[in-house]
């Protein structure tokens, strides 16, 4: 199957002498797959997501997204590509709190994007039917995350990037959110790349990628939650060297 996302030797350094978050990471993601990216705090997983999604630019290396090289793309073109082909779900929701559910979900269209899927269908999919006119600021955390998922799905994007989507939610609500993402992969053939530190969340994915100190150290089909936790512990503890 075609790769919808391809990273080649991606390096990201903050400032000329600053910290290096990614060191030559290469990764290919075929369309229709659900990839989890895990690693200890500071391992570079959020930076990987930002570079892959065109929110940040790598210092070196190339990123191809939906068949186009985005690492040297002009800001305007990149922004349009993001609007039309990429969906985002963040831990902190990132919604406009004073606007309604409808206004938030339709944001990509108000910014000039093409019509993707009908609003009613998307809201029904995430279980928000009837809440269109409510301001997002009045909703619960779980409902807000559903609004964010609805906004990510409404453009029928090539890839959805999720950064700790269950980080601020209780296990039950978090489970519902993960099922929505899993559903989007199985029923709509969507591609999801998710950064998480929760083994239970990672367990719903097809493929597990582990990062340590900005390097890709493991890439395999996703095992069960207990095995994920064990592998995560292994890369986390060996990463921390406590001076005597």
């Amino acid at each position, binding site marked *: 199957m075609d790769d919808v996302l391809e990273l080649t030797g991606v390096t990201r350094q903050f400032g000329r002498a600053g910290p290096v978050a990614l060191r030559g990471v290469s990764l290919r993601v075929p369309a229709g797959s659900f990839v989890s990216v895990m690693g200890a705090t500071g391992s570079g997983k959020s930076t990987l997501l930002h570079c892959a999604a065109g929110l940040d630019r790598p210092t070196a290396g190339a990123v191809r997204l939906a068949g186009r090289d985005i690492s040297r793309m002009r800001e*305007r073109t990149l922004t349009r590509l993001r609007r039309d082909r990429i969906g985002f779900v963040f831990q902190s929701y990132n919604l*406009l709190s004073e606007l309604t559910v409808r206004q938030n979900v339709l944001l990509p269209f108000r910014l000039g994007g093409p019509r993707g899927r009908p609003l009613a269908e998307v809201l029904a999919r995430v279980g928000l039917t009837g809440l269109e006119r409510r301001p997002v600021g009045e909703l619960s955390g779980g409902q807000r995350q559903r609004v964010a998922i609805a906004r990510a799905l409404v453009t029928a994007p090539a890839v959805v990037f999720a950064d700790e989507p269950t980080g601020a939610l209780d296990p039950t609500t978090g489970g519902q959110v993960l099922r929505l993402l899993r559903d989007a992969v199985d029923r709509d053939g969507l591609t999801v790349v998710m950064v998480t530190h929760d083994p239970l969340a990672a367990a719903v994915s097809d493929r597990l990628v582990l990062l340590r100190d900005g390097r890709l150290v493991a890439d395999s089909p996703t095992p069960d939650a207990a095995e994920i936790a064990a592998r995560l512990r292994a890369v986390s503890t060996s990463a921390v060297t406590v001076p005597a």
Partner: protein
Amino acid sequence: MSAGLTRQALRKHPWSFAGPVATLTLGTAVVSAGIGAQTSFGGAGLDAAGRRALAATDAADFATVLVLLGIYLSILIVTVTMAATIARQGRDIALLRTAGATPGRVRRAVAIQAAVVAIPATLAGVPLGTLACQAWVGSLAGHGVVPTAVAFRFSAVAWPAALGVALGAGVLGALAAAVRPARVRPAVALTETAVPRRTFGPVRTGIGVLLAVGGTVLAVASSTLPADQAEDLGLLVVLALCVGAGLLGPALLRVAAPLARPFGRVGALAADNVAVRARALSAALVPLVLSVGFAAIKVTAHTTAAHVRGIADPAADVWLDYSGSGVFVAFAAVAAVNALITVVLSRRGELAALRLAGATRGRVLGVLTCEAVVVTGTALLAAACVAAVTLLPLLHGALGTFLPYLPAGWLAAFVLGVFGLVALGMVAPAAVLLRQPAIEAAGVEP
């Protein structure tokens, strides 16, 4: 079409627009006052002698300068105040950028916000300016600066002109302020941890010292020159010293901060706060030093001349000089208060943490008052240095004395004025913030 950023910003942070609104209100007031003055001078039914007397004064020219000054300072200060307004929308802008808003669209959304606030600013500014102009024209006639036949006349042109200036200055200032925030990579705005910024502290301080020393040397050298040449150099001296003081702002505050330490635990806390926030607070220090230094030079030049010669300068010169300085000072005051309010608002979480750790409202306000005293003292001292270095050679050239004379009333007015402004920017917003339960404020994003 701003995709809701304008509505979101106006609803979520209505108070963050106070700075731009105040600036544009002042700008439209100054512009409509200038137009009113021109109409009053031009429309007065004067005889030939009266017209000659009016032309002999600079009053009519001054009215034109007033309009231009209002436009220029509006654009400048809207850029400064709008930058703080935009900074509060950082997360929302980052969200729009991830969702597909181009930098151009973000800039347009910010320009729309400025255009929206231009309308209430005009509605408030024109009546204020008209009242001020009425009083000003009256006082000019009363002091014999212009013929007594000149009476105030309102011109309806003031309304469209003021609205045009408010819209133009607001949009231009907002666009200038939005250049950087609109271009920032979304990932940078979304990440919680700040990327360590390059510290240019030593370089900044070095250039500041260089400018201060250079300005002083120039001032000393100019004291041997004829009066008119010295006066021309005086402008260069003021510029060098003010830019120098601006660059030295953080360093000055860091030096001044420990002076609060002897005042008990409140003082120690205030000293730490000022030292940590020296950079942010210096944004308020610059307009304060500029305005106080400038006003002190103007006032002291006149009072010393009157003191030495035994007679006052012609009322016409004094009044026009003071009126012009007043406009400068008013704009600088808006910039200073806005900068201070911005600092306090960004400390919302910290103030809440102080209270959760056991500080009473009174004690928190005590700390802030103490910080306000430090900022006031630093601003006054720096302004006094700028004024003295600039003025002494000029006084020597013109009057043959190195001893300036400033009546105690003026001195008290400067001290109280600066402290009043600093308290308005630091203590008043904190008192409002502290009404909110601490636990609510502790959790909010900055």
